[in-house]
């Protein structure tokens, strides 16, 4: 079975961008994926609930800052999903 949480295109994009970095802030992922604030926020919540993404809220001076990081489980799920898709699509 493929992981439906990763399969959704927007969430795949979010996870792929977090996969190649150590961590990134919310704004960076938003500008990179082209998702709107609300859309990204909702996808991040789903990924966080699944334990795939770690969200760290803090402040930089007086400005709020949200850092996102792919967890070990998230990395494993992303690898597994890609492997499965590669097998299915015979790429």
């Amino acid at each position, binding site marked *: 079975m493929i992981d439906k949480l990763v399969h959704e*295109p927007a969430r795949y994009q979010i996870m792929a961008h977090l*996969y190649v*970095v150590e961590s*990134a802030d919310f*704004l960076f992922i938003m500008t*990179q994926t082209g998702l709107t604030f609300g859309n990204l926020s909702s996808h991040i919540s789903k990924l966080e609930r699944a334990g795939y993404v770690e969200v760290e809220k803090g402040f930089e001076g007086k*400005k709020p800052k949200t850092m996102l990081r792919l967890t070990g489980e998230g990395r494993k799920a992303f690898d597994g999903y890609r492997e499965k898709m590669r097998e299915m*699509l015979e790429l």
Partner: protein
Amino acid sequence: MENATIVFMESHFTPFLIIAKHFAMQSVLNILAHKDRMAKDDIPEIERKVYSTVHEDGSWDIFFGIMILGMGLDTHFRSWITGMGLPGYISSFFFPGLAVLMMFLVKWHVTRKFGRFTYSPKMLGMRDRMFWLILVSVLATFGLLMLGMMAKQGQALSEYSGILSGLVAPLAISGLIFSVLAGMAYYMRFDRLYVIAAAFGTAMLTSELMRDCCGQDKDLVFLVLGVVILVNGLHLLLSLLGRLPRMGTA
């Protein structure tokens, strides 16, 4: 009886059939979209895109533009500030200082708007290797310059002085500049830096070769190249700022 069953099933199950069809269709479309994504948007490609965004702000172009422009303006700037009664060595620090300051300001401003990321351990390893490459290259350049100066003053290696003060030293310095910048471009995944490396290396060689025949006109090479790189950097910066969404960090 049979017809009645079909009518009953159609009337009661049609909404479910439509939904099932919709989901099946959606899955097929998702898989097709994913196949396309897997084919063209693979992880190395995304990695390259993410890391190249660091260079989209034109900060490195502005840095090298000011540095090279400074090399071209150095003679005139030095005579201007000594004319004002200030020590000439200020000129050696002014343009590099301005370049670093401008780069810092651009990075600071763009990061506030663009967001930031931290490098993965793999990329950090690459950055470490780049640091050692730059350090070794700087030491090699310093050694080469010292050797050239010693040869010119006839303190040592007098038999090589003719060769060193001729074509070999300019070639070596140009090659070194190109190698260092090309090494940086490779580790930073910054393709435009290859062009700057080649142009800077060539400008250095041309300028050294023009030294004997053209005097201060050799600075023109750096002036032109510096302006071109600086203008390109400013253009990149302005277009990036125009593209970014206007909002603070989330």
